[in-house]
C-alpha cells in the first residue's frame, strides 16, 4: 500500500513583498553581520600593514602566505561541504 499523501496548497503569490519594512530581527541580523565583517576587516588590515621588505626568510614568507591563503580561501566562495 502506498503511504498517505497530504497535499499542501500553494502560497498566495501576492505574499511576496520584498519592499516590506525590515523588522527588528532582520535589522539585528544585519548588525550582527556587520560585526562579523569588522573582525575580518581587522584581520585583512593587519596583513596589508605588514611591510613586504620585512619578509627576509622562508619562514617569514611562509607565515605571511599561510595567513593570506587562509583569509583568501574564506572569500573564495567554496561551498561548505561535509
Amino acid at each position, binding site marked *: *500500500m*502506498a*503511504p*498517505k*499523501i*497530504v*497535499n*499542501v*496548497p*500553494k*502560497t*498566495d*503569490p501576492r*505574499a*511576496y*513583498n*520584498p519592499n*516590506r519594512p*525590515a*523588522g*527588528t*530581527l*532582520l535589522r*539585528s*541580523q544585519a*548588525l*550582527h*553581520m556587520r*560585526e*562579523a565583517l569588522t*573582525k575580518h576587516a581587522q584581520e585583512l588590515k593587519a596583513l596589508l600593514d605588514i611591510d613586504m621588505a620585512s619578509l627576509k626568510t622562508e619562514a617569514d614568507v611562509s607565515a605571511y602566505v599561510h595567513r593570506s591563503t587562509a583569509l583568501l580561501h*574564506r572569500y573564495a566562495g*567554496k*561551498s*561548505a*561541504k*561535509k
Partner: protein
Amino acid sequence: MSVGLQNLKHIVVLMMENRSFDHMLGSLMQKYPKINGLTGNESNPDTNGTIVKVQQKAEFQSQLDPDPDHHFPGVDLQIFGTTEQAAGRLPNMQGFVKDYFSQTKDVNRSHNIMYYFDSQKDLPVLSTLATEYAVFNGWFSSIPGPTICNRAFAHYGTSFGQVGMDIFYILDNTIASIYERMIQAKRTAKIYYYDQPSSTMEIVNLLKNQPQIFATFDQFISDCSANTLPDYSFVEPCYNDHPGADGGQILASDQHPDHNVREGERFIGDVYNAIRKNPSLWQSTALLVVYDEHGGIYDHVVPPACTPDGYTASADATGTGAPFAFDRLGIRVPAILISPWIPRGTVVPGTESAGNAQIFEHASIPGTVTNFFLNGDAKRTVREQQAKSFLGLLTDQMRADDDCVVFNNLQ
C-alpha cells in the same frame, strides 16, 4: 536502549520563528483531547477592560502587522498581566492584548493577538506531523524574550546572560557551541541556512569554523539524497522575501509575522520529505520541528520555573526595572519529534499533567545531541545538563513505510 535509538545516526533540528503553541496547534484539542490546546473560553482583557476570548480566525498573513512585541518587558507584561514588579506577583497570561495595543494603538486590532488557526484545515503539514508523530505539550522557549537569545540556547545551552537582540558575545569561551563540540570530537555537524541572501541567525560561528559548520538548504537536500547528512544538522528557514538567483521570487518561510504562514508549511514539508524519501535516512534520523519563541502571540500555559544557568541579566538589560536570574522559561512553542520509531498520536505531557509533566526547552537540543553523540562529554551549563533529552520517545517498533505520511507541495 530502544531499537529505535540503536538505529539512530542523525538528529536534525528545524527551528522556525515566532508562533505560539496555541496559535498553531491549540485547535487540535477539540479532536485530540490529550493535546493541551484551547477550549475556546480562554481570554484576556483589552485596554478598555473588555474580555476578549480566543477566536479561530488566524490568517496566513496581514493580521499581525505591526509585529507583536516579544522583547523582555513586553513578554513580562504578557505573562503577568501588569508592568508592576511587585513581590509575589503571579503569572496569569493576561497581558497579551494589552501589550499588543502598545503596537497597534487600535483596540480592535489588538484583539488579533488572541487569534488561532483551524490547524487541520489551515496547517496540513504541522497538524499532520503533530498527530502522526510526537507533539510536546510542554516545550517552552528558553527565555521570555526575543529570537537571538532564545536561539543561543539551541546552539550553546545558554545565552551567556543575554535577554535581547544585542550583538551576541561569548562571555564564557569554555562553553562551546554544539557544532564545535561535535567537530572537536571528530563527529560531523552543520547549520544549513536557506541561501546567502537569507543567511543565518547564528552569527558568532561565522567567525570561525565556517566551512565545517555552514551550508545552504540546497546542500541539505543533496546531503539527504546522497546519504551524506552529518550526525547533527540544524536547518534555518528563509528569513526574508528576495529575488531568486534565476530572477524568480523567494518567499520568507520562517513564519515570523508578517511572513506568510503557508510558505513555512511548505518548507517544513520539504525538510520532512527530504528525509522521508530516503529509506535508509528515514530509518536512522530523528527530526525535531520547533519554534524559537512565541512572537508575542497568545498561549494559555504559564511558563514554569527552571534551573538558573548561573547568569543574571541586570534591571537595565531586562528593561522591566527588575533583574532576571534565568529562573523562568519563556512562553510555550510548538515542538514535534518525527521518526518512524515513534507511535502515531504520541502526546508528551506538559504542565497540565502535574505528576507526569515532561518539560523541555531549547537547552534540551544541545543537551540531547551531546548526550547521544558525545556521551555527555562536554563542558556545559547546569541548565543544559538538567535539560530533558527528547530521544526517549523512540521505541522498539518501526512503523511500516506505508504508515508514514508524505507531503506534496502543489504547484
